[in-house]
C-alpha cells in the first residue's frame, strides 16, 4: 500500500516536472517594452528542437580544431555571456585575440554583429570564431564532418530540421535559434518601464541624468542605438581601426558599435579592447580624461576645445544607481540558456 502511494507520488511529481518543462519553452517572445526585432524569423523560426540543438552546439567544443574551445568558453552566462575578467580573450592553444568578447544578449534586435559590424546576418556570425586562427581555428567543413560522425547529432538535426543531413545552413541556423533567445529584459529598469515597480529617488535622479547625458547614443530600451561611433577613449595599443576595416571609409576609423549598458555588473572589463576594468574608470575617462582623437563623436565635443561629458561626483553616484537597475540577474541565471 505504501509502495503504491510512493509510486503514485513519484509519478505525480514526474508528470508535474514534465509539464513544467513543456510549459517553459515559449519560443521567441518580444518583451512588451522592446521594439520589433530585426532578425529574419520568417526564414528561421525558433522551435524547441532547433533551440535545444543550437544550445548544444553553443557549448560544443568540437567546433574548435582540437575540441577544446566552445562558444561558451568565451561567452559565459554568469558574465552575461562575456569572458569574465578578460580584456581580450584567449582561444585555442592560448592564442590571444585583439578584442573583448561582446555579450550574446538581445541580438535579435541587432542589425550588425561584432564590434565593427562586419557581419550583417546573425546566421553568418559563428563562421568568424570557428574559422579564426586565435579563436577556434577550425573549418566549417571539419565541423560538419565531426557532427555527422557523432552518435547523437544526426538525430537532433532530424528533430530540428526534418533531415539527418547536417549542413552549414542548419548548423548556423540552430546556433541563431539559441542566440536570439538570449534576451535580457527583466532588469529592475524593465520592471519600472512595464509599470511593475518604481525607481528609488536616487535611481530616478540617475535616470534623468542618463537621459540628458548618455541616451543619445545609449538609446532605450536596448541601451545602444546600434550605430558605430568613436567615444573618444583613444586609439588602442594595437591601432584597431574598428569599422574602417569593414568600409574602408576614412570617417569610420576608430569607430566601434555602441555597446549596450545592460548587465554592466557582470560584463567587465569594458570597451572593444577591454581596457577599463571598472565603471569608475569609464566615467573618469568621460568626465575628465577625454582628449581629441580622429573621428571623435560630435556628441562629445563640448565646443570649447575640450571633450567628454561633465559628470560631477554627486551625479556619478546617481548615474551608477541608475545603471545598476539595468542588471538582470534572471538573464545570468536563466536555466534555459545554461550549459
Amino acid at each position, binding site marked *: 500500500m505504501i509502495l503504491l502511494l510512493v509510486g503514485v507520488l513519484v509519478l505525480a511529481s514526474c508528470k508535474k516536472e514534465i509539464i513544467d518543462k513543456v510549459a517553459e519553452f515559449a519560443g521567441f517572445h518580444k518583451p512588451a517594452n522592446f521594439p520589433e526585432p530585426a532578425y*529574419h524569423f520568417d*526564414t*528561421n523560426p525558433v522551435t524547441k528542437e532547433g533551440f535545444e540543438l543550437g544550445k548544444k552546439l553553443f557549448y560544443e567544443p568540437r567546433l574548435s580544431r582540437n575540441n577544446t574551445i566552445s562558444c561558451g568558453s568565451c561567452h559565459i552566462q554568469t558574465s552575461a555571456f562575456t569572458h569574465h575578467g578578460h580584456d581580450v580573450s584567449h582561444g585555442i592553444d592560448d592564442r590571444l585575440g585583439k578584442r573583448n568578447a561582446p555579450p550574446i544578449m538581445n541580438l535579435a534586435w541587432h*542589425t*550588425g554583429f*561584432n564590434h565593427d*559590424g*562586419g*557581419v*550583417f*546576418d546573425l*546566421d*553568418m556570425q559563428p*563562421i*568568424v570564431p*570557428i*574559422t*579564426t586562427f586565435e579563436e577556434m581555428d577550425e*573549418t*566549417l*567543413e*571539419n*565541423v*560538419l564532418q565531426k557532427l555527422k560522425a557523432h552518435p547523437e547529432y544526426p538525430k537532433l538535426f532530424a528533430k530540428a530540421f526534418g533531415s539527418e543531413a547536417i*549542413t*552549414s*545552413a542548419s548548423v*548556423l*541556423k540552430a546556433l541563431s535559434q539559441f542566440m536570439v533567445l538570449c534576451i535580457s529584459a527583466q532588469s529592475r529598469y524593465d520592471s519600472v518601464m512595464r509599470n511593475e515597480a518604481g525607481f528609488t529617488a536616487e535611481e530616478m535622479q540617475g535616470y534623468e541624468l542618463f537621459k540628458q547625458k548618455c541616451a543619445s547614443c545609449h538609446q532605450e530600451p536596448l541601451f545602444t542605438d546600434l550605430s558605430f561611433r568613436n567615444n573618444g577613449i583613444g586609439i588602442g595599443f594595437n591601432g584597431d581601426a574598428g569599422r574602417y*576595416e*569593414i*568600409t*574602408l*571609409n576614412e570617417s*569610420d576609423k576608430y569607430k566601434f558599435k555602441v555597446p549596450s549598458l545592460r548587465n554592466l555588473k557582470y560584463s567587465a572589463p569594458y570597451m572593444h579592447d577591454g581596457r577599463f576594468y571598472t565603471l569608475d574608470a569609464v566615467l573618469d575617462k568621460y568626465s575628465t580624461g577625454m582628449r581629441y582623437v580622429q573621428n571623435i563623436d560630435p556628441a562629445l565635443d563640448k565646443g570649447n576645445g575640450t571633450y567628454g561629458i561633465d559628470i560631477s561626483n554627486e551625479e556619478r553616484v546617481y548615474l551608477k544607481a541608475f545603471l545598476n537597475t539595468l542588471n538582470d540577474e534572471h538573464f545570468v541565471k536563466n536555466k534555459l540558456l545554461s550549459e
Partner: protein
Amino acid sequence: MSAAIAGLVFFASCKKEGKEPEFNRNDLAPLSIEFDNIVGGTNLYLNSTTYTNAAGEDYAISLLQYYVSNIKVYKADGTEYVVPQDCSYFLIKEGDVASGSALVNVPEGDYSRLVFTLGVDSLRSTMDVDRRTGVLDPASGMDEGMYWGWNSGYIFFKMEGLSAAAPVDGSGQNKFRYHIGGFGGYSAPTINNIKEISIDLSQAGVAKVRKERKSNIHLMADIAKVMNGPTILSIAANPTVMFSEFSANIAANYATMFSHDHTEN
C-alpha cells in the same frame, strides 16, 4: 538521276542541321563554357613553372580560383537568355579538371555574345544562408575557402604563389596572396569589385546550341594580365592584397584577361 536526288536529299539534310531552331525558352540544351587559364603564350602549370611579370619579377602560382556567375547569352538579333540564378554559380579552380567549365542549359539557338559576372553579385551575397549552396556554401573548400567570415562576403578571385620578390611571411615563405572581393557593402557602401565580362563570339565562332550536341565555348583567361595591366603590379610593392582600396586595381586588371579562342559545336 539518282545522284541528283541523292544530292538534293544531302543538301536538304545539311540545311536542316544548320538551320537555327526556333527560340523556345522551355526547350533547353547543354552549353559549356570552358575557362582555360594561361599565362601569356603558355599554359598555366601550378607550382612547377616560373613566370615573369612586367615588373621583372619571377613568380610561380600555387593557387588560382575565381567565381563565374550570372551567365547570359545573346543571339545576333539581341534576344537574351538569362540562366536561372540558382544554376549560375561556378567556382573555376585551376588544377581541378571538374571545375574548369561552367555547364548551363540554354534554349537551342545560335549565340553570338556571352556575358558573365566574375564574382558573386550583391543580392546573393546578402541572401539567407539557405540560398548559399554548392560552391557558395561557406563550408566549401578548406584552405581554398572563398568566404570572408569577418566581413561577410565572398572572395571573388584568389591567387597565391611564391616569388623571391615577396617578403618572407609568418609561415616562412616568400608568398604573395591576392584575395579580391567586395560586393559594395550591405549597411554602408564600400568597395565593389564585381565585374561583368562581355565576350563577342561572332569572330571566333558562335555557339550553336542544340539538344543532341554539346556546344563548348572555349575561353582563354590570360593570368599574366592579373599583374601586367592596366595597372602594372609589383609583388615586392604589394605582396598581399585583400580587402583594400588597392584591390580595385587587380580587379580592373583581371577584367581584361578573358578572350574567346574558339567554339566547338
